[in-house]
């Protein structure tokens, strides 16, 4: 009798599919993941990196020109003072939320399939928050006094106003970045030790030293693991309310104001669901091509993609429900300003943006009800691009359509972005992709030690021989 008997079981819905597929053992998992960075740099990487760095340089140029000239170079006008940069800020910070959801919330729910994707989603979180943090910083106009937002003494002799949601945002985003970074780094330590040992064996002394320095002398002691796992669990426990708080606080920037279309209590949960939805969209957009190019199909399985599509379906439905509920509340409130804001959204001058948003965010995720779509990487990839576009437009609709026609009719105006606005958005993608490509090239993109822990042979009570293993699977 061999392990194959396990498969002979009639489909048992309680039996989870294995996380790692194919004929893999611990060593092959290590070499599959490490092989990505040890192999000769593929030509495609240079091409993508070249494009990304070009976009990044363009970002620097845009910021330089902006600081030199002033915010008049943007399309921001008097009613729409927030304009394009805040749209981009909310877009990027939302994308960041998937990483923490995968690393923290799914960890607490013991969703083991997360191990295949948590590392790069966490990396994506960090890079997305970097891109996000840039926009409010350059949006203040006089970037050289940005330190006024921090509680440190300044030449005005006064302190920041802690009653302002914009200041809450400063604390939320910087805490979010720091904690996400720590979470990511703590997860990396054992894998960096793997890289250290592999480089030493391959005679790559400098690389081994560098990885070794960041691996902090890790040698897998069970005493270390015990404290490590405790710290990891605590970080997951802290990050779970943190991730919910960050986008809630971002939504307070809107909801605490009195602008029609913003001043609603539905905003925090609606923003959080949208953030996770957009983040999963971005993870899928990056993961699906990378999984194929880097030949990681055994580790990032179709089951993982299937589970991610289900989360897209869930959060996409919450987002769709929120859109409907906003209209209901506007009608039910009896406030004519609120009612006008929503009619104006759907049928006013920005209706094109509104309907792009609806078709991408409400219609597209519903396709995930079909198993064939959930298990088709190509279909999911296309779907995820729609989600990214739709979620960018959601922020555009919220920011621009509410502001461009507020209480004072005489100040109504139409906002359109300038070329510089568009180039800056492209530049922020350059920043994100440059960081992401460097990460893919030099760091373990899959959590090696975590994924090993999900394999059957990792159990201290599993035996090596097929018959015992099969017995255990039946038990």
């Amino acid at each position, binding site marked *: 009798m061999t392990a194959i008997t396990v498969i002979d079981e009639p489909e048992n819905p309680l039996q989870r599919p294995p996380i790692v597929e194919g004929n893999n053992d611990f060593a092959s998992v290590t070499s599959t993941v490490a092989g990505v960075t040890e192999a000769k740099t593929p030509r495609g990487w240079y091409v993508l990196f070249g494009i990304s760095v070009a976009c990044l340089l363009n970002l620097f140029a845009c910021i330089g020109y902006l600081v030199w000239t002033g915010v008049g170079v943007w399309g921001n006008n008097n009613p729409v003072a927030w304009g394009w940069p805040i749209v981009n800020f909310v877009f990027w910070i939302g994308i960041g939320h998937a990483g923490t959801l995968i690393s923290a919330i799914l960890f607490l729910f013991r969703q083991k399939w997360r191990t295949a994707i948590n590392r790069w989603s966490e990396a994506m979180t960090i890079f997305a928050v970097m891109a996000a943090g840039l926009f409010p910083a350059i949006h203040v106009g006089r970037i050289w006094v940005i330190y006024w937002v921090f509680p440190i003494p300044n030449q005005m002799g006064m302190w920041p106003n*802690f009653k302002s949601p914009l200041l809450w945002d400063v604390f939320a985003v910087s805490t979010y970045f720091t904690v996400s970074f720590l*979470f990511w780094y703590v997860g990396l330590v054992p894998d960096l030790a793997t890289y250290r040992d592999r480089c030493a064996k391959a005679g790559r002394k400098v690389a081994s030293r560098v990885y070794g320095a960041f691996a902090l002398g890790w040698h897998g002691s069970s005493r270390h693991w015990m404290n490590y796992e*405790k*710290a990891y669990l605590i970080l997951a426990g802290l990050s779970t309310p943190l991730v919910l708080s960050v986008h809630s606080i971002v939504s307070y920037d809107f909801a605490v104001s009195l602008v029609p279309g913003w001043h609603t209590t539905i905003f925090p949960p609606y923003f959080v669901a949208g953030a996770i939805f957009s983040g999963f969209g971005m993870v899928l957009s990056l993961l699906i091509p990378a999984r194929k190019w880097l030949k990681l199909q055994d580790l990032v399985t179709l089951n993982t993609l299937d589970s991610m599509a289900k989360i897209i379906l869930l959060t996409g439905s919450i987002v769709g429900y929120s859109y409907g509920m906003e209209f209901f509340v506007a009608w039910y409130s009896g406030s004519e300003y609120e009612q006008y804001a929503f009619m104006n959204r759907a049928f006013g001058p920005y209706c094109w943006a509104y309907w792009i948003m609806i078709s991408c965010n409400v219609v597209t995720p519903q396709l995930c009800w079909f198993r064939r779509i959930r298990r088709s990487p190509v279909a999911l990839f296309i779907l995820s691009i729609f989600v990214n576009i739709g979620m960018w437009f959601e922020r555009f609709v919220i920011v621009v359509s509410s502001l461009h026609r507020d209480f004072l009719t005489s100040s109504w105006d139409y906002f359109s972005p300038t070329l510089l606005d568009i180039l800056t958005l492209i530049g922020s993608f350059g920043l994100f992709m440059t960081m992401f490509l460097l990460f893919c090239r030099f760091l373990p993109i899959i959590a090696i030690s975590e994924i090993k822990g999900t394999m059957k042979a990792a159990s201290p009570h599993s035996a090596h021989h097929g018959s015992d293993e099969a017995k255990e699977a039946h038990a």
Partner: protein
Amino acid sequence: MSDGKTYGAVAEFESAAAVYRAAERLVSEGYRKLDTHTPFPIHGIDTVLKQGASHVGWICAMMGLIGVAAAQLMMWWMNGYDYKIWVSGKLPYDWPPTIPITFELMVLLSAFGAVFGMLGINKLPRLHHPIFKHSTIDRVTDDRFFMSVEASDPMFDSNRTVQLLESVGGSHVELVEE
């Protein structure tokens, strides 16, 4: 190799189950200063090795409380005492608007407590450890499982301990120096 300089004996095992069984055996023989070194955490081995509970949680809780206190003190002193800001008819200091920042600082300092507390308890970063002198230890981050018995264990005896490690299935049993 003089005994005074020996750090301990280190053995290699093929599987998580093997090192787990070996740990049970050595503990039942009376060894206390032993440790396992594995590519991933083996669940339940901390109980076998009688390691006790982790103290990371306490450090984290303390830091969280400090975060709450620091946030409240900062906002009260800055907005309610040192330079009162009267805006939209609200009190310069009142607790409801302080909640978001208090929460964020609590999370931030707790996270510092968890990470740096964990590193502190584990005595990391560390430039060198005697176990790295073992000949096949580089596989500890790949697919092999190791057990070390420190020479300071009262039961330790270079010959007997090595024999015992071999008899429980250990290979590459070596004495490593400090």
